[in-house]
Structure formats: C-alpha cells, structure tokens
C-alpha cells in the first residue's frame, strides 16, 4: 500500500506548529505565535514568509495602539492543506 506523500511545506516543525495554532483561532498576532511556538523572531519571520508564499496564510500589517502589528490567519487553501496533512499522518500511523 502506497502512502500519500506528506506536504513538504507543512512537514516542518515550526511551520506545522504555526498552522496548527492558527487552525484553532481566527487570527493571531506575531507576538502571540512567537510566545506559543517558542521560536526565535528571525526563524518565525522566515517560516511565516514561506507559508505566505504558498498561500497557506495571509499576513496583515496594521498599527495596534500606535505600534506596528503583524497578524496572521489561515487561508482556505491553508485549511485544506492542513486537513490533507492530518489525513496523511493518520494513514502513516495506521
């Protein structure tokens, strides 16, 4: 039996953590994701850019209480990719 290939974008610890976190919320600030994932700012920025490039998340830059704020949300494409990834993982785990 051939297993479905795992999405290489999501098959990375930090990117998977970000997407899993965003699945449970509608939108989250950069600082919130940073705190929950325990990643470094630089690494998180890079991984968010990758997720944005493939269209899995949308990034919104605004001002919150006079300070620049970056917030992220999953796109429908990101939700589908996550669901497919979870289904593939379940297959691997039998």
């Amino acid at each position: 039996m051939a297993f479905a290939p795992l999405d290489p974008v999501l098959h990375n610890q930090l990117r998977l953590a970000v997407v899993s976190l965003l699945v449970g919320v509608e939108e989250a600030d950069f600082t919130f994701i940073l705190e929950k994932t325990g990643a470094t700012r630089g690494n998180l920025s890079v991984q968010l850019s990758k997720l944005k490039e493939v269209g899995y998340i949308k990034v919104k830059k605004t001002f919150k209480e006079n300070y620049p704020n970056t917030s992220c949300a999953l796109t429908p494409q990101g939700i589908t990719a996550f669901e497919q990834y979870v289904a593939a993982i379940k297959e691997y785990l039998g």
Partner: protein
Amino acid sequence: MDKDLTPEQSLKVIESMIGQAKKSFSRMSFYFLLWGVLLIVAMAATYLLRNGSEAFSQGASWGIAGLIGGILSSIHGAREGRRQPVNNPMDRVIGWIWGAFVITMMIVIAASVSNHQDPGGMITLLTGFATFLTGQIMRFKPLIIGGVLFWIAGLAMHFTNDPLTLTALYCGSMFFGYIIPGLMLKNQEDGLRTA
C-alpha cells in the same frame, strides 16, 4: 524548532498547538469581578434600604448597578479588544451567550414587573445557565461549579419570600459563582501573561 518530523512528532505538535489555541481566551475575569461586586452591593442596598426609600425598594439600585456595569464593561471590552493578540472564535460564542442572557433577562424583568412578581429567582437561574456554559466552553471548573450554585440558589429563591433569606441566597451565589471563580480566573490569566 526547525526540523523535519516523524508522523508521531507531527501529531504531537498538532495536538500541543491546538491545545494552546483552545486555552487562548480573552481576559474575562474583569467582568465576573465587576458584576459580582456591583450586584452584591445592589442586592445589599435593596435589602438595607427597602423600608427607607421608595426608589430603592422598587429596584433603583439594580438600575444604577446595571448602568455602571454596562459603561465599565463597554469601556473595558473596547480597550481589551484593541489589545487582544488573538481572535478565538469561542470568545465570540461566549459573547453571544451573555448577549442572549441580557436580552432574556430584560424580557423576564419586564414580564415579572408587569405581573408584580420578583424576577430575582428567575434571573439567578438564567445566570446559572450562562455561567455554566461559559465554564464548559473555557473548561474552567470554578465557573461550572458557580453555574450549578446559581441554579441551586435560583431554585431555593422560588420557595421563600423572606427578604433576608433572598438576599443571602443571591449574595452567596454571586460570591461563589462570580467573585471566587473571577479571582481564580484572574490568577490564571496573570500567570499566562507572565509565562
């Protein structure tokens, strides 16, 4: 945190992050503490001034408490909404529950007053309903227990007309249903903020 994963590790990451998201509610302790204090004071004022002032005997203290609570809750809600680092859909569900509670409470008050009945018992039962559901959604046991206490107090209030017993039941349920869970929730929120 930047490496490839085994399927087991993937599953752990997913579970852990979804668990984190589920715990990410906005700060709600303020509302329980504010309304708990205001409503206990309103009930105590109604009891103490019931023979001295016609306005208070007819429920002026509830109107004043409602006005102060409404204004402070709105200001706090608007400020927290701007600061909130995450939008959890469950926050909105909890908001709907309390919105529906307020509408139902208004109808109950209007219907009871027009029938010359005390709405206290019914409102306490409704408070139990909203508090219990909020506790279940947040998975916060003190609020769940608080909701059950409101139900017990609301039921007991239907079997007495004694003002002191009614006051004790209402204030007691507010203390154990709002104030104590509110303080415990505040401790938890402060802990999460500094973690």
